[in-house]
């Protein structure tokens, strides 16, 4: 005899949507069947109550991904574009990517949850020895969408991951990245920027697990949140006993643009090795009023001055994007979001 959990319509819809699924999607179905959608009572979801956010979702939706064909045959220098779209209702999809040893690949994922969507997207990545992945995720959702993106990324020796994630939020938007970092010449750079208008939420959750010696990890996530918006940052570095001489630095900084902006941050270091260089920094602030006055004295309207200051603040993580055209594109995206904010 087992107690069956009574599912809310969104949970039932997700289970129905995943009927007959295999692999990661089957796991998601079984977890949902057994535990339901996570709520704030789960430590890892305390600032992103998924069950509550999905309250209005009833039917089954569709998750469509274009560009998947390109994943099968990768060559050095390739740039792959995936457009992931979740329609209204519950849906889930996943994909796998192997970056062959010695090759360098750029992956751009454009995530879009439509109005009333509960979208789940998962990517499983392996970067083989000496390979490099530049991963860009643009989360650009409808304000009433709920979307969970997650990635499981495993690096081999000497592999490089450079990830940049930008998010303008949704009713609930969460991007999870779990990284297995072997050290031994492998290196990880994680950049992120979120910009949230009133009523929008964005959650950046990352776990980097260092298992071997000499790994390098740098993380810089910056955000700007208007009154009524909620930004969440959960960053965790785990350094195993075997991962001596790990050099891992995590920085999260965010601007509160109004009194009712909410920013929840939990930077964590879990270190079992004794000879490491690890640090985390977390700073919340407001716009520099002195700078604002200086700019207005020169004739810039207040809204424009604010936008320029926020833009330059958030641009820093985007400067880590290697491809110049892509970097410019992300900055334009940011500017457009800013325009909508002020």
């Amino acid at each position: 005899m087992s107690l069956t959990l009574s599912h809310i319509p969104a949970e039932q819809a997700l289970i129905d949507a995943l009927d007959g699924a295999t692999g990661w999607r089957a796991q998601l179905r079984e977890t949902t069947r057994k535990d339901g959608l996570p709520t704030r009572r789960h430590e890892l979801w305390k600032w992103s109550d998924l069950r509550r956010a999905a309250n209005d979702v009833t039917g089954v939706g569709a998750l469509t991904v274009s560009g998947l064909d390109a994943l099968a045959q990768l060559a050095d220098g390739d740039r792959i574009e995936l457009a992931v779209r979740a329609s209204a209702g519950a849906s889930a999809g996943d994909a796998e990517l192997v970056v062959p040893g010695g090759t360098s690949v750029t992956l751009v994922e454009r995530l879009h949850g439509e109005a009333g969507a509960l979208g789940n997207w998962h990517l499983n990545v392996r970067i083989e020895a000496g390979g490099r992945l530049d991963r860009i995720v643009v989360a650009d959702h409808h304000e009433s969408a709920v979307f969970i993106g997650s990635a499981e990324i495993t690096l081999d020796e000497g592999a490089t991951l450079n990830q940049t994630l930008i998010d303008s939020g949704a009713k609930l938007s969460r991007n999870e990245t779990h990284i297995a970092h072997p050290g031994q010449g492998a290196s990880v750079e994680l950049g992120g920027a979120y910009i949230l208008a009133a009523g929008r939420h964005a959650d950046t959750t990352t776990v980097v697990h260092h298992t071997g010696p000499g790994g390098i990890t740098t993380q810089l996530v910056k955000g700007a949140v208007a009154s009524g918006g909620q930004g969440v940052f959960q960053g965790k570095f785990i350094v195993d006993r075997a991962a001596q001489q790990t050099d891992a630095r995590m920085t999260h900084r965010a601007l509160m643009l109004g009194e009712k902006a909410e920013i929840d941050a939990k930077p964590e270091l879990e270190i079992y090795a004794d000879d490491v260089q690890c640090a985390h920094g977390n700073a919340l602030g407001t716009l520099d009023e002195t700078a604002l006055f200086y700019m207005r004295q020169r004739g810039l309207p207040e809204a424009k001055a604010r936008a320029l200051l926020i833009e330059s603040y958030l641009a820093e993580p985007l400067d880590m994007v290697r491809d110049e055209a892509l970097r410019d594109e992300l900055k334009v995206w940011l500017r457009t979001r800013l325009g909508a904010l002020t």
Partner: protein
Amino acid sequence: MLKIQDLRCKVETQDGEEKPILKGLSLDVPAGEVHAIMGPNGSGKSTLSYVLTGRDGYEVTGGSMEFAGEDLAALAPEERAALGLYLSFQYPVEIPGVPTITFLKEALNAQRATRGEEEVSAPQFMKLIREKAKQLNVSMDMLKRPVNVGFSGGEKKRMEILQALVLEPKFLILDETDSGLDIDALKIVSDGVNALRAPDRGMLVITHYQRLLDHITPDVVHVMADGRIVKSGGPELARELEAEGYDKYLGEAA
């Protein structure tokens, strides 16, 4: 051009107390004239510059200030700027991430838009800024750097005057623009300021030193003490102050 009558202002200190700083200041700078203000530390000179340009936290509690026929108190800082009021800051502010060129172009075009004038195109602007940079001996490399970030004290002051040359304001307030400048830079900056002297332009030059006034000869010198103008005179007043100090005026202010 700039008419200040019995101006009073207070600031709120960090512990929430209200502190009166300007205590009935009157001053009249007609178009075409350069007036200097000298006065001891803390007498309220920078405060005056902030009240005139509309900085938050500087509350006008009495009197009036009028510029080009407009009541300044009713205008936002950017509106005052578009009217032609320019402040060269005593402590220029760093703006990380915003290149000086971008900043200046945005500022110029914002002012022009407010005045209903046409935008300056990118090539026109580059031509303009090259010419002015040359005049002030500022390299184009420096202009690509973020506003004031990592500039030396003297470089910042030079940059303030460069911005004025580009924006061509109707009225300049120079708050200790000479401090931090070496002898050659003082000459270059003064030449820049003198180039802006014009029959339809006024200036208020705040300084502690005669040496600036050797280059920029003022029409009138005012002595400020404890939030008021306590004495006005010709250029010789500055030399007298340099020789004798403020002692004899401090009593009058009390």
